[in-house]
């Protein structure tokens, strides 16, 4: 089955081509079927491949398979081939991308049913799946980069899908530009990697890297550049402001791209290059620091947001911060585990939010919602499951993954654990605030909206249910040994991180310490949940209007700590000024002046010479005589 791996990215590409070219001719059911069908087939193939990899792991092999497709660049010592790498890490990512991708495609059939760009939407979604699959399957940095840039492109296309709205189009542009900054950093890192290791294949680089010294400066530079790229793609400080704005796209886009797959590309890339990072402890510290800062900052903003999608967006940024924190403290498996569980419950949350928005006739402000529990029962139950999961309340999946990260953080640096714990408190609070404002209490919307409230169709609710089940039981993937579990995921992924584990030593934490940590975080999460419920559901508190007076901290949080304004002043305005300078002075006055001026001079000189054509024979003869005289004189003087 592994030699059929090239089919897995190819099928969504075919879907893109068909739906793209036939977007005005194919009927909507065909488009939806084709778009979802190709992803389903890819998913089934991925299951087959996963089974093979699993079997290989069970047999004790390292289960790393390379499938070359064709030689692409051979220039001197540079050999880049399009080839796919199947190992435990990419096998799991395959399942996530195709599986959750398939569910979201099915969801979109219902959600985008009334949209005129239905076929275009499915084409873009398929294209995105194709690029994401290239990213996770690439066996060298170049193929990964192709996927990296491709998902950035699809993100731009899909965020600005309703491009006729200028703000949405600008949001798409913002996402693309910030991603490009990361892409530049990635590219420079790739150049450095080629310069240092002489090859770009993973199987060539990582064994060479193990021979290098810890703290090697070239590796430090490479990993810092790779991390900057990851901050762009995975929305960390300083390149995170695009993700909340990306909520301008349709909700399935937010679910697929900005919850489950694209934003996890950064973590995947770092997990794949884990040996390089382990050899640069400074970078890992930077990663952890930025991860936890982002987590706290985003959580602090999410507490006061009123747009349901914005809350989820900042929640995503925050959870991504946790994943980077996990990577930074060496919990590679833990971070990846959190990627998996986060994919489940965040996709579910976004799809549920889409369901709510759909029911509320495109209203996204939570202040107009309330009491939707009885109108949208399935949505309510699934979102409740997701909220409990993300808050880290046992025994749902979020608890296990977040706890593993926090345990590693505790072993590394107590301060990190404390900050992570505070972030978890925030998380529980704002998620239950969101849930309470939306589903409990009295309905606060207009009568018009009230009459349209209905549960979503089956195409939308079935994916919700499936994701809810996964969010609930997903924790069983990697139950820590402290709770008597078999940590199956860690075992499965061990060959990927073997080199790093060899360097840092296996992770050890007293079981008793672990129990205490787990208990503390679980209890704290439950307490915050109850607090939020009591404030918003029971007491019926409603957040104030946009211009209502707020305390300083609340104001800072509500205005997203003015980060956008800061960037605008520091970066956007100077660039605009520079651009205006180049346009007015260098382009218009300088270059145009030169070129047009040249043309004008030619025209003027032509006008002048035209005056020689007097049509008067006498003047012609006169000129002839003068010319002859001049020639003779010239000949006379020059011998």
């Amino acid at each position: 089955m592994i030699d059929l791996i090239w089919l897995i990215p190819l099928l969504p590409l075919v879907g893109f081509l068909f739906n793209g070219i036939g977007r005005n001719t194919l009927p909507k059911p065909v488009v939806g079927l084709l778009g979802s069908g190709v992803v389903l087939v890819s998913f089934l193939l991925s299951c087959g491949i996963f089974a093979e990899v699993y079997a290989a792991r069970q047999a004790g092999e390292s289960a790393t398979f390379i499938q070359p497709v064709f030689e692409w660049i051979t220039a001197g010592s540079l050999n880049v081939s399009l080839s796919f790498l199947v190992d435990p890490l990419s096998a799991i990512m395959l399942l996530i991308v195709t599986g959750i991708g398939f569910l979201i495609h099915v969801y979109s059939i219902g959600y985008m049913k009334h949209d005129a760009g239905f076929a275009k939407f499915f084409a873009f979604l398929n294209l995105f799946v194709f690029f994401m699959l290239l990213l996770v399957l690439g066996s060298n940095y170049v193929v990964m980069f192709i996927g990296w840039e491709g998902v950035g492109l699809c993100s731009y296309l899909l965020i600005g899908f309703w491009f006729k709205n200028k703000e949405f189009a600008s949001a798409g542009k913002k996402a693309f530009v910030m991603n490009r900054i990361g892409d530049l950093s990635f590219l420079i890192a790739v150049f450095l990697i080629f310069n240092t290791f002489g090859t770009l294949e993973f199987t060539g680089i990582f064994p060479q890297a193990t021979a290098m010294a810890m703290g090697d400066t070239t590796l430090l530079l490479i990993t810092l550049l790779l991390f900057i790229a990851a901050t762009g793609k995975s929305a960390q400080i300083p390149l995170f402001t695009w993700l909340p704005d990306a909520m301008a796209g349709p909700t399935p886009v937010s679910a697929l791209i900005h919850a489950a797959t694209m934003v996890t590309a950064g973590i995947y890339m770092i997990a794949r290059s884990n040996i390089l990072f382990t050899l640069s402890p400074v970078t890992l510290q930077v990663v952890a620091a930025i991860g936890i800062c982002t987590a706290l900052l985003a959580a602090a903003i999410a507490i006061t947001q009123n747009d349901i999608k914005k809350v989820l967006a900042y929640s995503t940024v925050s959870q991504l911060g946790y994943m980077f924190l996990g990577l930074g403290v060496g919990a590679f498996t833990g971070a990846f585990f959190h990627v998996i569980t986060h994919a489940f419950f965040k996709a579910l949350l976004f799809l549920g939010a889409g369901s709510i928005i759909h029911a509320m006739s495109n209203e996204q402000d939570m202040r107009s919602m309330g009491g939707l529990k009885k109108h949208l029962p399935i949505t309510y139950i699934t979102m409740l499951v997701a909220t409990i999961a993300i808050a880290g309340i046992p025994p749902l999946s979020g608890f296990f993954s977040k706890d593993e990260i926090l345990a590693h953080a505790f072993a590394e640096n107590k301060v990190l654990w404390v900050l992570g714990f505070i972030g978890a408190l925030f998380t529980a609070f704002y998620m239950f605030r969101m849930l309470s404002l939306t589903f409990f209490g009295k309905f606060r919307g207009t009568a018009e909206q009230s009459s349209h409230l209905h549960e979503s169709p089956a195409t939308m609710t079935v994916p919700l249910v499936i994701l809810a089940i996964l969010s609930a039981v997903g924790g069983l993937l990697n139950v820590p040994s402290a709770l008597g579990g078999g940590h199956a995921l860690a075992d499965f992924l061990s060959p990927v991180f073997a080199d790093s584990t060899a360097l840092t030593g296996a992770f050890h934490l007293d079981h008793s310490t672990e129990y205490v940590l787990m208990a503390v975080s679980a209890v704290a999460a439950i307490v915050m949940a109850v607090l939020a419920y009591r404030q918003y559901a029971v007491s019926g508190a409603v957040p104030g209007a946009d211009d209502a007076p707020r305390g300083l901290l609340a104001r800072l949080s509500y205005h997203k700590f003015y980060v956008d304004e800061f960037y605008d002043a520091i970066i956007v305005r100077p660039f605009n000024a520079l651009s205006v300078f180049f346009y007015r002075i260098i382009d218009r006055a300088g270059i145009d002046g030169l070129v047009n001026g040249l043309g004008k001079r030619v025209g003027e000189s032509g006008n002048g010479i035209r005056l020689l054509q007097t049509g008067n024979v006498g003047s012609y003869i006169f000129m002839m005589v003068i010319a002859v005289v001049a020639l003779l004189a010239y000949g006379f003087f020059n011998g």
Partner: protein
Amino acid sequence: MSVFYFVAFLSIFFALMTIFTKNPVHSVLYLVITFFTFTVHYILLNAQFLAVVNFIVYMGAIMVLFLFVLMLLNLNKDTEPLKSNLVKFMGVIAGMCLLVTLAASFRLLEISDPVVLKNPDIGLVSNLGKVLFSDFLLPFEISSILLLTAMVGAVLLAKNDPKKA
């Protein structure tokens, strides 16, 4: 020897008169006299054939033709268009420049030997005729065709078109 200079002076005087008179008929007549002085020059060079041909063709045919056309167009002193003084001045200057340049270039040439007639008879009709009909037969024949063409052309050009009103 002095004959040459006297006749040369006459040529120059009458040439100047040609271009400076206002009446075009006078101009033609002065040119006729100038050509006569040229004929004398040819005789002085013992180019008898050319002297006679010059007399007949130029003075007898070409200038008469000019006179015919002048009479046909009924041009006289009154209908003569005037040129502005500036143009006249510039024209004279240009001509003088040309003359000066030519004269200056000729000063560099060292051919101030007196004309020594090696063979004084080459200008005689019979001798010239021999050369003409032996070495230069082809150009001779072609020039006859040339004259035919010119005749045809002139007739065609000047014909009154009967279809036009």
